[in-house]
């Protein structure tokens, strides 16, 4: 027995609501040596979280571990009783969840929650535990390590909370820590700090880790080995360098290829004078009470101007809270602006959507990030897509049905899907339906608000390709809002960087490397690269980080 973790032929079954038994993990085997970090990577539904949880002997409700061995530190987790497993959790194995914000109890202090493990397992007296926690806070480079424990979870930022949940996991001195997509919900600039902190702590303590993620670039920075999962089976295993440079399995290659979407072809008719489709002048919008000068108390968008030309795309990029989504909603009239002008297709638009004409509404469509909530779960796909056809175009039943088929075809969905409800579609399919509904209106401009953020890398790349194709066919313009630079680079002619409600800079994708504004520089340099040495070699200007990074 040389490895800390040896999983052999693991099988996990789930029971569906029809009483059918589905095997979700089909004979997975993996090894983790002492002090080694192994990444589990795969699309959603590939079973990566299920495998990670099984290392604690845990199966989610409705699932059962039905076969195989899970040896962790010489004990078979699958065969232990629940009581014995509980003893090991927190002391031998610890878990860092995806959403730290949802995992902290909002009504007790951070310190209480971090040292809770030592109290439950009676590891050390509380005084000692607090000292140890402060040491961990320091090691995780949290600001104000002595005082942060006295705060409540809502008083610290998302990135800090994620590191605090790592402190919670590490306080019991575990041999193995399971990270379940810990940086997925974070901004790139924050993600770096969290990754760096995780990496240094794990190195220093010689702790083994399992890192679950769908982001190959993030995994490349932190993992020694990578296990690629798909459909509950191991597709490929290898060292990080092997996987990145010489991937064998087609699925792994697909993942790698998806990471670098093809650049959009520069417009052939670039020298032709293009017509302005949308112009925005000094737009200001926000929330809260309106003050004497007619502006809201909190300005989410502050005096932003931009222009979109016909058939061209504008990308808006920035971290969460920078006002990019508010800007999209202001343009669409969902959240009326407090000041400024919106000129669309030569005519000035009313600020509120309710006052715009039906044609103006039709020509500008907005597609939201979460297709789950953007599609009415009670209606079949055909009704969802057909509604704009009836509403704007007044098509009769037969032409409508034909048009729905056409639209489904445009977004590369099989026609049979029209009878299904949104809950019966995958994430990528839902986003395509979401997009087909926008297309049904025959718009001139589509505002895409983070439409690929909730999708897996491979699926997101396919959706981006689809958008490009549709643009060629239909001559659309997009405003593409994202926090993911590679996505924006792939589809946009111009990129606008937003920070704190203001427009910081506007550049073209080929000049991203030569950004002039300090925040753009920081943002662009923070996007993880597939190169495993990238994080260690990354040198960031400390002034920049302290000025713009929300640590």
């Amino acid at each position, binding site marked *: 027995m040389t490895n800390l973790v040896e999983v052999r032929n693991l099988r996990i079954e789930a029971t569906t609501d*029809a009483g*059918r038994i589905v095997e979700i993990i089909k004979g997975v085997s993996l090894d983790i040596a002492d002090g080694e970090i192994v990444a589990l990577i795969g699309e959603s539904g590939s079973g990566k979280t299920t495998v990670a949880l099984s290392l604690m002997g845990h199966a989610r409700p409705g699932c059962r571990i039905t076969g195989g061995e899970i040896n962790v530190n010489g004990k078979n987790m699958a065969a232990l009783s629940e009581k014995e497993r509980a003893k090991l959790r927190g002391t031998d194995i610890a878990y860092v969840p995806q959403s730290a914000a949802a995992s902290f109890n909002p009504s007790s202090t951070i310190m209480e929650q971090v040292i809770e493990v030592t109290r439950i397992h009676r590891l050390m007296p509380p005084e000692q535990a607090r000292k140890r926690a402060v040491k961990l806070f320091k090691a995780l480079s949290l600001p104000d390590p002595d005082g942060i424990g006295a705060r409540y979870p809502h008083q610290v930022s998302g990135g800090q909370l994620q590191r605090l949940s790592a402190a919670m996991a590490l306080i019991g001195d575990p041999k193995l820590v399971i990270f379940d997509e810990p940086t997925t919900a974070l901004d790139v600039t924050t993600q770096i700090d969290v990754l760096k902190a995780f990496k240094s702590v794990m190195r220093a303590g010689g702790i083994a880790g399992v890192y679950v993620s769908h982001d190959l670039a993030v995994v490349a920075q932190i993992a020694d080995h990578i296990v690629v999962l798909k459909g509950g089976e191991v597709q490929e295993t290898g060292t990080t360098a092997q996987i990145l440079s010489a991937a064998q399995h087609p699925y792994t290659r697909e993942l790698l290829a998806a990471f670098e979407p093809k650049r959009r072809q520069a417009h052939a008719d670039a020298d032709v004078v293009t017509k302005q489709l949308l112009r925005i002048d000094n737009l200001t919008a926000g929330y809260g009470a309106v003050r004497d000068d007619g502006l809201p108390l909190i300005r989410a968008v502050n005096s932003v101007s931009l222009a979109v030309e016909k058939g061209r795309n504008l990308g808006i990029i920035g971290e969460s809270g920078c006002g990019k989504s508010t800007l999209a909603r202001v343009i669409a009239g969902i959240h009326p602006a407090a000041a400024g002008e919106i000129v669309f297709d030569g005519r000035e638009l009313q600020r509120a959507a*309710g006052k715009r004409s039906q044609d103006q509404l039709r020509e500008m469509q907005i597609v939201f990030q979460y297709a789950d909530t953007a599609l009415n779960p009670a209606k079949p796909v055909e009704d969802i897509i057909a509604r704009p056809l009836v509403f704007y175009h007044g098509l009769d039943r037969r032409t409508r049905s034909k048009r729905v088929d056409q639209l489904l075809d445009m977004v590369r969905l099989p026609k049979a899907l029209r009878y299904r409800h949104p809950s019966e579609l995958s994430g990528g399919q839902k986003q395509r339906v979401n997009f087909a509904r926008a297309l049904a209106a025959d718009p001139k401009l589509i505002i895409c608000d983070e439409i690929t953020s909730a999708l897996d890398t491979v699926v997101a790349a396919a959706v981006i390709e689809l958008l490009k194709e549709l643009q060629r066919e239909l001559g659309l313009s997009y405003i593409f809002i994202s926090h993911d630079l590679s996505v924006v680079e792939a589809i946009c002619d111009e990129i606008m960087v937003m920070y704190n409600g203001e427009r910081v800079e506007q550049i073209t994708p080929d000049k991203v490397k030569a950004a002039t504004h300090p925040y753009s520089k920081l943002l662009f340099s923070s996007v993880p690269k597939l190169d495993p040495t990238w994080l260690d070699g990354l040198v960031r200007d400390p002034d920049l980080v302290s000025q713009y990074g929300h640590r």
Partner: protein
Amino acid sequence: MVARVAASRRSFLGHNYNLVGVIAALVILAWTLIAIFAPYIIPHSIGDIVDDDYFGPMRQGLWLGSDYLGRDMLSRVLMGARYTVGISLAAVVIACFSGVVLGMIAAVTGGWLDTCLSRFLDAMNSIPSKLFGLVVVAAVGSSIPVLILTLAVIYTPGAYRFARALAVNINTMDFMTVARVRGESTIYLIGSEILPNIIRPVLADFGLRFVFIVLLLSGLSFLGLGLQPPLADWGALVRENIGGLPFAAPAVIVPSLAIASLTISVNLLIDNLPKKIRDRNA
């Protein structure tokens, strides 16, 4: 895909159901049929005195005994079903329809309309229901339309609150924003976007409210403010035969059981509604 079927579950037309729900549904169906066909199946007219004795026991010909005047109890219970189920149903339909529609409109429109409606109906809600019924019946007298309207008014604020709470949640979803930006009318928003998403809990609430109304109607009748003799719903039957309690007369037990069986069945049915199976490969 490896697929085996686990321990047998009942499923029919793509829905899971369980035995309790089925039995409850059958009881409700039986009472409904009785309510509809009562005039054709009762052995005696409800006003006829057919027994020499009062509070007679169960025996051949008088299957449920006789009441305090020697009338046939079976006929009176069967006809009582008609009034209890009919009045309650009419009241609950009016209450739920107006409550749910107003609730959805308030949630979608928001602003001052929402505030006014909510405060007004909250004020209505604060009036004790039995007291309100007593006052109305005392003021305008008791008749079937008055009863139906009174019961409906009493239970509208609850239905409004319930529907508004559900609709407010749906209202924050992106598909509502999409529909609004499309320029849809309020009627489309509530009928086509919100209602299909809240219909199941609203139906459950409908059933629950039906039970409350049956009980309140029985209560009012028991106090003598419901239907007037010789008509009698189940609550009135319990009241007029309460004198038979010391003799353990079936005349007082049977209508009580009838109320219990209907209300409990509706409750059980709501808790055990068939669940749609989402697993399409099954």
